């Protein structure tokens, strides 16, 4: 190699030390930015599919994004998509019951699409606590990861779909799902699709697995802000 790797390493080490605070911020905001990006992709998907998409519950003009399990959904912003086939809402980090109704089984999906009104818009009366979204109200969802998409990550995602929306793994979608132009449960990742995964993902159609894998979604979101954009969540078998 024409370069001295050791010298380069020392230079980069100095660089990282010098901007330590900024690297700490980079590390801290990593997962939240993924979820923000995934939220925007979901909103744009419905916009591109002909829905009228509006934002609700802004705070001082800003979208307030719910991160993690803490907090009640009515204290955060939501998108509403109104179209020919119904009205839906897009939320972040909602706890959802599993498909079997197992007592206490809740999964927090990063981005969740629900029928309009399925999530309370204000605190419940009598001090009651809102615990979760009934599984029957879950239309579809996105999981966002910062990783290279490798086989075990796909297996993990299939496991989540199995618990939340198993019909999508059995070659079935709910009636009206395609007509309403919803997207199949999706895994979006900042990383690229590892070589060993290409055949796995390529085989979804033949196996009638109705799930989406969107790699390098930082690039996908960039495409979305251009004219003539196509939703990276659209399509599927």
């Amino acid at each position, binding site marked *: *190699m*024409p*370069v001295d*790797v050791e010298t*380069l*390493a*020392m*230079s*980069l*080490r100095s*660089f*990282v*030390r010098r*901007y*330590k605070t*900024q*690297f*700490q*911020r*980079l*590390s*801290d*905001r*990593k997962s*939240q*930015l*993924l*979820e*923000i*990006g995934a*939220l*925007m992709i979901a*909103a*744009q998907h419905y916009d591109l599919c002909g829905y009228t*998409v*509006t*934002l609700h519950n*802004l*705070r*001082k*003009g*800003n*979208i*307030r*994004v719910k*991160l993690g399990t803490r907090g009640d959904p009515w204290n955060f*912003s939501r*998108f509403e998509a109104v179209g020919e086939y119904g009205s839906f809402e897009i939320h972040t980090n909602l706890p959802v019951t599993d498909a079997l109704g197992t007592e206490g089984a809740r999964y927090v999906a990063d981005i969740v699409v629900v029928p309009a009104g399925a999530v309370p818009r204000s605190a419940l009366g009598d001090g009651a606590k809102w615990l979760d979204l009934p599984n029957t109200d879950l239309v579809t969802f996105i999981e966002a990861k910062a990783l*290279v998409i490798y086989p075990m990550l796909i297996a993990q995602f299939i496991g989540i779909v199995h618990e939340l929306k198993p019909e999508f793994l059995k070659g079935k979608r709910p009636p009206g799902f395609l007509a309403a132009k919803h997207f199949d449960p999706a895994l979006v990742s*900042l990383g*690229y699709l*590892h*070589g*060993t995964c290409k055949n796995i993902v390529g085989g979804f159609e033949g196996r009638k697995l109705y799930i989406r894998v969107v790699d*390098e979604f*930082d690039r996908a*979101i*960039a495409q*979305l*802000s251009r004219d003539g954009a196509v939703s990276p969540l659209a399509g599927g078998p």
Partner: protein
Amino acid sequence: MALPQSLTRVTAELPFALRQDIEGYIRTLDAAQRDIYADAEVKTDEVPSEDFLFFAGIWRLWTQIDGQRWIVRNSLQIATEFGARGISAGGFSYSVGSDDVVGIRQLHDRYHDWLQRHEFEFLVQIHTPRALLEALRAQANAG
């Protein structure tokens, strides 16, 4: 194989989560490198394995910084189209000129400058480990 020392000297300075990400990624590449070399038709005497993994670390760090910049910039553009001024999440605030947005851009520009200064600007165009390996071979041959 243990991670190259040249790389761990750098990652030791990174915040824990970022360090885990970079090192975990390099371990994944390490496990797959035989296939990557074969796909790229590159031999280890053309690009030594340690050098490939080191530059993969530099590249991975770039993708983390660049990815955040893309997401913030485009998310803000989309948010604006829907009538929002910005986005707040946890303790972070993203709007035009906010500290967090400026911080992301500054780190992006500084790291880009660093790559440029060391004549590794080509890394910003790379999308796959195979392309990285091919680029490293081309650079070695040019040198």
